[in-house]
């Protein structure tokens, strides 16, 4: 325990002894993580957007003729029992007419002379989030078709395939970009820490020559790296929140809100914790990599 406190004190003293280099390391971690935080913020909100869009995925099933109340109840209760179905809404010919009328707006007079029940009765079937895929929709359509209750089914297969391709591209881009950013951050942090170690190379050398064990030499620098990384992570979080409040909420908001989102999110607590821990890990790994190259015992 005494040894542990001693190593921690040494790490803090090292930081206090070279405030400029310490600030440089913390600053580097902060900037690297700020970029990561910004990226995470965009990914989070685009994810939110795609989740929002996926709510529009639904199957419309048309009856050949207006069903009796009893038949409708039977069909509705059966469909609601299916696991992939989130909800079902009946649209009568009259409701369909009213909706169409409203949509036509100024051109509504095109409907003049047509009976109010000329559109078919239909069911709008929303899917559970897990089933909002082209395979999920295809499965549901197959079951609906084999039930024999409906004359026609519409489900926007082409749109769904494009949506899925977009999501796949987004996921791949997130993984590649995120990985690249992390790697770049590690590279920059490791090199900055290497500079701080280089400035103390005489101390490292003397330590080894007077009989310090490798653990004794390296531990304070690893603790120092982790502390600097953690502080950098906290500063990046604070900076990220500041940027979010000042710019992103308006600018990213203006972009994304036009697509139907109701609000822009900041990173949730788990992501915030991950950001700070990533900083700590970056600092630790950065020190470890530099020490391996610099400390020859």
């Amino acid at each position, binding site marked *: 325990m005494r040894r542990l406190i001693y190593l921690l004190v040494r790490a803090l003293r090292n930081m206090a002894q070279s405030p400029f280099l310490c600030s440089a390391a913390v600053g580097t971690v902060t900037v690297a993580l700020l970029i990561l935080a910004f990226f995470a913020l965009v990914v989070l909100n685009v994810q939110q957007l795609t989740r929002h869009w996926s709510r529009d995925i639904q199957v419309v099933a048309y009856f050949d003729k207006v069903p009796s109340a009893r038949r409708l109840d039977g069909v509705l209760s059966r469909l609601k029992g299916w696991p992939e179905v989130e909800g079902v809404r009946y649209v009568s010919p009259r409701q369909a007419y009213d909706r169409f009328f409203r949509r036509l707006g100024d051109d509504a007079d095109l409907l003049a002379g047509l009976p109010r029940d000329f559109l078919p009765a239909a069911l709008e079937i929303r899917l559970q989030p897990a089933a909002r895929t082209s395979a999920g929709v295809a499965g549901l359509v197959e079951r609906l078709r084999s039930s024999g209750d409906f004359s026609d089914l519409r489900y926007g297969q082409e749109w769904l395939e494009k949506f899925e391709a977009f999501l796949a591209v987004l996921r791949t881009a997130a993984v590649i970009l995120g990985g690249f950013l992390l790697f770049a951050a590690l590279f920059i942090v490791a090199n900055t820490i290497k500079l701080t170690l280089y400035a103390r190379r005489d101390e490292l050398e003397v330590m080894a*020559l*007077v009989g310090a064990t*490798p653990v004794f030499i390296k531990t304070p620098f690893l603790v120092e790296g982790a502390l600097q990384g953690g502080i950098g992570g906290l500063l990046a979080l604070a900076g990220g929140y500041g940027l979010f409040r000042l710019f992103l909420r308006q600018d990213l908001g203006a972009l994304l809100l036009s697509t139907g989102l109701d609000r822009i999110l900041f990173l949730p607590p788990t992501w915030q914790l991950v950001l700070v821990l990533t900083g700590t890990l970056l600092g630790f790994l950065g020190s470890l990599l530099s020490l391996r190259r610099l400390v020859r*015992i």
Partner: protein
Amino acid sequence: MIQAFNLSKQYRKDSAALRDVTLKIAKGEFVYITGPSGAGKSTLLKLLYADERPTRGQILVDGQNLTRMNARRIAMVRRRLGVVFQDFKLINSRTVFENVAFPLEVQGKKRYEVSNRVYQVLKHVGIEHKMKRYPLELSGGEQQRVAIARALIIDPMILIADEPTGNLDPDNTREVMELFKGANARGTTVLIATHDRNMIERFPRRLLALDQGRLVEDRMP
């Protein structure tokens, strides 16, 4: 205390810093290692405190083979060696007191133990009044004394010094030699690499002479 068998060290393929050196130094001996510049004196010392590994041969210190040790065990051997480096190797960001305390700090000694011992050793080398100064505020002779104090603080089994009087005037040289002789009188084996003929003549001891990496002379006084 020290045994070396067929010790060779090559930094480059075409030239050897040390060639086939075999020697034996008993416990409590005082030995000069001498020879012209580039003869291999510093290399031999570096092999003795395991700062370098030999290209060929074996080296035993207090019965332990340095060539087969891992970093941790080498650290344990170094805790029993006091080394005075040619360039002193003091840490400029630490005070004289902290520099001298460093070997004990590394060994995890208690604070009050360290303070007492450091003060005693600084007084012994005559520099206790400058213990709060930083190395760059001291003269070359004073820095040399700090380096010696750091080597003596652990009561070393072997004291190794590389050109310890190279930059000192005759008075300082005499005082430094008295410190080494004192340590030797207390049982420490002393090895000094030097090409200072005057010093060897004034304080005659066993002499090992190196030339072009070979041991060419082993002479008792």
